[in-house]
């Protein structure tokens, strides 16, 4: 038993650290570590920096411009980026569509789309969920009817993350009405400039604009834009959802947030003691630290199990559940420990407003925003169902 990375992996870790120290812009770190929203330009700038180094597409083979990294190297890279406060990468092109195209795309599709993901010409968004079909994708209703060389799409997608910045969307649409709801679904690529598409913002509980609704009215999409065979979109989507799950425990993000908490707790005093000395908050903090350390090792164990194969369903489900619990626990402690200082919404006004300690400004919105973690990408209830299915099968 050995928890250490191999010499090669340690060298890689040092290389990543050095690169981040050199190339990660301070203004982006300041934003992520205070939980502020990133602009489109922020994200594109960081993508470009990584792309210049050849480190943007961690999960793609080298022949397509990917890194060819092992799962351990990918993990190291993700963790170091999170700890350094780098922006989260856009998963839609890199972690979702890219692997799908590499596996199921035609040569033309690969040649057309993969380079545009890397160099930033395309910003993809995801069109899976629909109102009434969140975790239950098989019940989706958006339909695509064949009309010559085109599909004509009508319907509505929702929870489309950062769709406001995107120029393309990949969708699951119903191309055939069949008995089994999973059949008759196809995976298509849609240019958001196509007439008949309307994107409307959904404002979230913390006031942020992060997700959208997308309405399709007689949207004509070339038949060539299908990925995989017609009516076999379910297979493609399942492949995508497995790939999406790398780094699902989010250990790096939790570690960064817990570091921030400790820093804050040392600095902020309340009723005569620093929060670090307040026994009830301090006890919560050390228990979360233990939880996080356990999660870190559990995650490495899962990584080791899947080093050369795809992640197992039960591992990634358990990592999802526990990872979100730990992260949400940390953000809840952070918010609650600040007490009355976290109450004012000091960011929503421009002048004559309360000057809060910088730690307090985003504590509540970040907490609220991250309640999403246990809901999206398959809610924790769905994950429990998945694990139970494995545990209780005969």
């Amino acid at each position, binding site marked *: 038993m050995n928890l250490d990375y191999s010499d090669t992996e340690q060298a890689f870790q040092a290389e990543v650290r050095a690169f981040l120290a050199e190339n990660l812009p301070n203004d982006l770190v300041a934003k992520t570590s205070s939980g502020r929203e990133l602009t489109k330009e922020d994200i594109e700038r960081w993508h470009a920096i990584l792309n210049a180094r050849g480190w943007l597409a961690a999960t793609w083979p080298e022949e397509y411009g990917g890194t060819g990294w092992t799962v351990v190297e990918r993990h190291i890279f993700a963790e170091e980026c999170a700890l350094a406060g780098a922006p989260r990468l856009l998963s839609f092109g890199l972690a979702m569509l890219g692997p799908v195209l590499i596996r199921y795309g035609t040569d033309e599709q690969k040649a057309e789309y993969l380079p545009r993901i890397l160099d930033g010409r395309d910003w993809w968004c995801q069109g899976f969920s629909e109102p009434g079909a969140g975790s239950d994708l098989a019940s989706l209703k958006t339909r695509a009817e064949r009309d010559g060389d085109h599909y004509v799409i009508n319907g509505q997608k929702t929870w489309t993350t950062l769709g406001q910045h995107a120029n393309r969307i990949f969708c699951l649409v119903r191309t055939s009405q069949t008995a089994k709801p999973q059949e008759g679904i196809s995976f298509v690529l849609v240019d958001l400039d196509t007439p008949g598409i309307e994107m409307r913002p959904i404002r979230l509980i913390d006031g942020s604009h992060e997700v959208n609704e997308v309405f399709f009215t007689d949207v004509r999409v070339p038949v060539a834009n299908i990925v995989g065979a017609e009516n076999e979109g379910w297979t493609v989507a399942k492949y995508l959802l497995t790939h999406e799950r790398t780094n699902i425990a989010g250990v790096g993000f939790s570690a960064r947030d817990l570091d921030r908490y400790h820093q804050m707790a040392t600095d902020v005093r*309340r*009723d005569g003691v620093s929060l670090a000395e307040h026994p009830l908050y301090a006890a919560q903090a050390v228990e979360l630290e233990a939880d996080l350390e356990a999660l870190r090792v559990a995650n490495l164990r899962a990584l080791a199990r899947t080093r050369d194969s795809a992640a197992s369903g039960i591992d990634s489900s358990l990592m999802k559940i526990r990872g979100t619990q730990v992260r949400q626990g940390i953000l809840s402690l952070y918010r609650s420990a600040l007490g009355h200082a976290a109450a004012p919404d000091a960011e929503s006004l421009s002048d004559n407003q*309360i000057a809060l300690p910088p730690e307090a400004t985003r504590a509540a919105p970040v907490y609220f925003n991250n309640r999403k973690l246990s809901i999206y990408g398959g809610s924790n209830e769905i994950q429990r169902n998945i694990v139970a299915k494995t545990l209780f099968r005969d």
Partner: protein
Amino acid sequence: MNFERSEDHAMLADMFGRFLQETSTPERRNDTAWTAPFFDQTAWSEMVKLGILGAFVSEDLGGLGGSAEDVSVVFEEIGRALSTDPYLGTLMGLRLLAESGETDLVKQIMAGARRPAFAVFEPEISQDLSLIGTVADEDGKLTGRKSSVYGAPGADLLLIAARNDQGLGLYLIEDVTSVQVLAAPMQDGGGIADLLLEGTQARPLKAASEERIEDVLDLGRIALCAEAVGAMDALVSMTTDYLKQRKQFGRNIASFQALQHRIVDMTMWVEQARSITIRAVASYGTGDQRRHTSMAKNLIGRAAELCAEEAIQLHGGIGMTWEYPGAHYAKRLIMLDHQLGGRHDHAMRLIAMKKENAA
């Protein structure tokens, strides 16, 4: 032993509830709660005309009683309707002015001509009055910084707790332009401010003792607990209803046993929250006031968080959206623990009381 509301209270709740249902709509809240002065002035004036503030004041001052139960009836409706208007600051200010014998000001407030706010806590002080750093000199000039002054934006009477040679004193600033009011909305809407006092002239009030201030804070805490009960009750009902109508995997999601059990636990906690609030209300003004108030605020800190987080989770994505009123109820229930001491603050206060009693 009787847990039924009196006829007067039932009427008050009914009238005020109907008023709030019309005035505290999501649309009006969106328009007003995050923009200075962070409340709906028209609705507030109508509320004053309805005489609701009478519930905060005793009968000899023209009120309807001012008992903790009167206050809790009003605040439960505020919670149920998710009103973000400045009731809490008004309640605490009114009480302190009444106890100081400022009858004229009390009447003006009740008539809607003026509105008070009460400044007690400071950036690093949120519970322990003995640590208050704002000072008053012999001439009544105040220096210090006050935080979390609820309803201060737009208020025209500022009551300030400040230290003088006798201990803790209470001061009134009638010329609010003499103070720098750093205003902001709260995360969940409604006005809050820091006050910068730099030798600001103020008038000493009579009701000046740590004891009396703590009493008014306890009344504020009870008000917040009642508000939480109203909001929790509404939110748990909304969540139950949502599960009934929402379908997934071809089934009504209310049929999933794991979700059912979680709703049962939420329902149970609403009843526990209501019960501990009733206890605190009944003990107000007795020797058990501090203990039962802190128990209530502590338990509700836990129960409200549980209900809020579970409600968001059980709703799924929709519970995360600004457009869905349930999300704002959840937000209010979480942020309520940030006012007048949270769960851990009140646990520590209870531990300290136990130590005092043992000594």
